[in-house]
């Protein structure tokens, strides 16, 4: 409340925002700034970081997290949540790879992966939109089912014997750029346009900010909610394709509940609010890269696996706090 003592300010004058404040209010810029500082810092102290090999491994890692984080962004904007993303990704990849290894037809396999993931997304969507179940409970239950089923079907082992072309296509590179990165960028651009430029995207934000007003406006909020879980499923499916291609196999460990932390971190760091109504694809992508840089650096430093969770958790608390401060700056309180 810094505005209190400016009694000299005339009534109609709009107080221009301080340029620095304005920049700080853009979550993406802040994140980018912090990210760049960290990367410069790291590359000075960890020589291995700035190698092409390491960078592309960061990008590959970011692609799977990024795709699922895109899916989660759609869901979170409408104030929903999809906890089932990583386990659905693993489950659909397993089913698809089983088909692929039987038929040796990589296209059929890819199709099955995506369709299975979308079918589960549709189930989530139907439960939330049509039957008004609580998203957190439904998707947690679905996640548990998917994880259980994955282990059960495979006997907790990986499904291999996939055609070599599968890895070549989806985990290869074009002119030195990893295929995963290209797919991530293409999907991100399409999803960004869908979210920010179309009626459907605006309906999403409307539903998230005030569902009742959205309904009065004529938005079919049930349809919106169904579709976002379907999109979330689709993203899990594409991530499943990339993940299993990278390993040339698919097993329950491809996507576990632990990974959800990375996904939600990426989304929240990117400016989405769990309260709904906020979030962008650009932010989410920056958030995903940020997350995989952190993970990568911790690997390079040889930080123990479990400690990485402590650090990630702390990061998200820090950023949520940052977000609060940022919103407080320049907050307008008028009755």
């Amino acid at each position, binding site marked *: 409340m810094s505005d209190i003592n400016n009694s000299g300010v005339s009534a109609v004058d709009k107080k221009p925002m301080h340029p620095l404040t304005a920049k700080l209010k853009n979550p993406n810029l802040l994140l980018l700034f912090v990210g760049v500082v960290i990367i410069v810092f790291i590359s000075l102290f960890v020589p291995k970081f700035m190698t092409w090999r390491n960078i592309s491994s960061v990008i590959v890692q970011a692609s799977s997290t990024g795709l699922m984080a895109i899916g989660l962004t759609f869901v979170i904007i409408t104030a929903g949540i999809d906890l089932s993303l990583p386990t659905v990704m693993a489950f659909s990849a397993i089913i698809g790879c089983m088909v692929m290894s039987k038929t040796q037809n990589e296209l059929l396999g890819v199709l099955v992966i995506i369709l299975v993931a979308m079918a589960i997304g549709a189930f989530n969507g139907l439960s939330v939109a049509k039957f008004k179940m609580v998203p957190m409970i439904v998707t947690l239950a679905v996640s548990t089912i998917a994880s259980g089923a994955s282990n059960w079907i495979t006997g907790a082992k990986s499904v291999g014997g996939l055609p070599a072309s599968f890895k070549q296509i989806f985990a290869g590179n074009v002119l030195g750029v990893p295929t995963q990165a290209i797919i991530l960028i293409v999907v991100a651009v399409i999803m960004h346009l869908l979210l920010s430029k179309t009626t459907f995207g605006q309906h999403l934000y409307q539903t998230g*900010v005030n569902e*009742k007003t959205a309904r009065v406006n004529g938005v079919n909020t049930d349809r919106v909610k169904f579709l976002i879980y379907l999109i979330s499923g689709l993203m899990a499916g594409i991530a499943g394709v990339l993940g299993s291609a990278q390993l040339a196999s698919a097993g329950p460990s491809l996507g576990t509940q632990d990974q959800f932390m990375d996904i939600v971190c990426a989304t929240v760091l990117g400016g989405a609010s769990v309260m709904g109504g906020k979030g962008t694809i650009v932010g989410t992508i920056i958030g995903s890269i940020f997350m995989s840089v952190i993970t990568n650096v911790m690997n390079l430093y040889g930080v123990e696996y479990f400690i990485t969770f402590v650090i990630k958790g702390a990061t998200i608390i820090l950023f949520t706090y940052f977000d609060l401060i940022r919103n407080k700056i320049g907050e307008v309180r008028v009755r």
Partner: protein
Amino acid sequence: MENMVLKLENISKVFPGVKALSDVTIEARGGEVTGLIGVNGAGKSTLMNILGGVHRASGGKIFINGEEISIHSPQDAENHGIGFIHQEPITFNFMTVAENIFLSKLKRGVNYRKLNEEAKKYLQMMDCDIKPNMKVGDLPIGERQMVEIARALSCGGKILLFDEPTASFTTTEKKKLFEIIRELKNHGAVIFFISHFLDEVEEISDKTVVLRDGRVVISGWTKDIPRSEILRNMIGGEVVQLDESAKRVFDEVVFKAEGITAGKAPVDVSFQLHKGEIVGLWGLMGSGRTELVQTLYGLNRADRGKVYIDTGHGLKHVSFKKVREYCGYVTEARHDDGLFLPWPIWKNITSPNLKAYKKKPFSFLDFKKQKEDAEEYVKKLNVKTPSVQTRIESLSGGNQQKVIMAKWLLRKPHIFLLDEPTRGVDVGAKAEIHKMIQNLAREGTACLLISSEIEEIFALSDRVLVLNRGRIAAEIDKANIDKEILMSYCV
């Protein structure tokens, strides 16, 4: 009790972009009721919030009995014996009446018997027989207000601020409140009473202070200021008269509802709307007015019934889901389901009309055009705001309501459903909104108008439908509209 004097000297308050109060000087004495009146956004609530410690003044001084005091928090206000009774009772519904009354004084290890006895004392001061150990959530809203007053009294009750306390009251509750206020007055308390309603202020207050744009424009003994004077000063111009339209003929049916039934209300409702006609929908609270509109609009599921709309090719059956496409719907509670509060004005205005902004080749939305259209309507409807980028939540009630009107006008609806379109709106904006509705009807839109204000129904409607327990009890022509007749069909 010695005769208290509360003096506010040159109080001002600046919010970013708005000067809410400037140089407000008021002196109030014990044993007097000071009525504070003004349109929405005039600064009444801001002034009370400063006294109640919710906001801090940007300038000016406050004196009690000649001694300067500073109020930085609601706690400070309480310590100075200032009790604040809010517009909507702020109570904790899962706690008991006694706990609510002594909220700020509750400590660990409360002696509940003593607490309840103490609470009873304050409640009895108001002749109120609420049991102190009842849960507040189980009380009707009027009695919750009593709990608030008792809470204010427990803080010493030397200075009491009533901020539009009657907004949610029935007539009997109001009567009782006024008795209480008179009682408190006789005990020598300094009392501020804020209201939109002129007759309430005239009835209860000894002195009247009129605020406009954050300044005191007129003040003095209530009996010395004529009503017209107050009204003129409130809106700062001449009172806009509603023009009594000449009798017009309505022959073209554009909307027909047939046997609409959805649970308890509405029940078997059938009626027609003509082109250019304003039809009032009158009924008491709970008669199912809002439910009927929501069912027609497809928000509630209808058990039975059909809707026909003329979209230019004669009356055609339209499914409830499609009705929305031809209707504008101003809802009863704008904060609840009329606005996107954190969003700028322009986004709110275009939010139901996005279809119109699709651009080729990818159907992407034209944001620039949206802002231009919003600007046009903000100007047209005289919305007072620095720009269309301003967040809607920072506007006053009247301006918010105009934005809601704008968002539907932009759609150019065939049918306009208006549920309490001027609730919580100041006199000036109210007249403007009435004008908008009349102009819209003149251009051929059929309007269905719900209002609790009988004057509004009188002034605007060409015909009135009376709803009673979900059914249409009567249909009355303009010539025969009369208060008693309307009431006789309601009860």
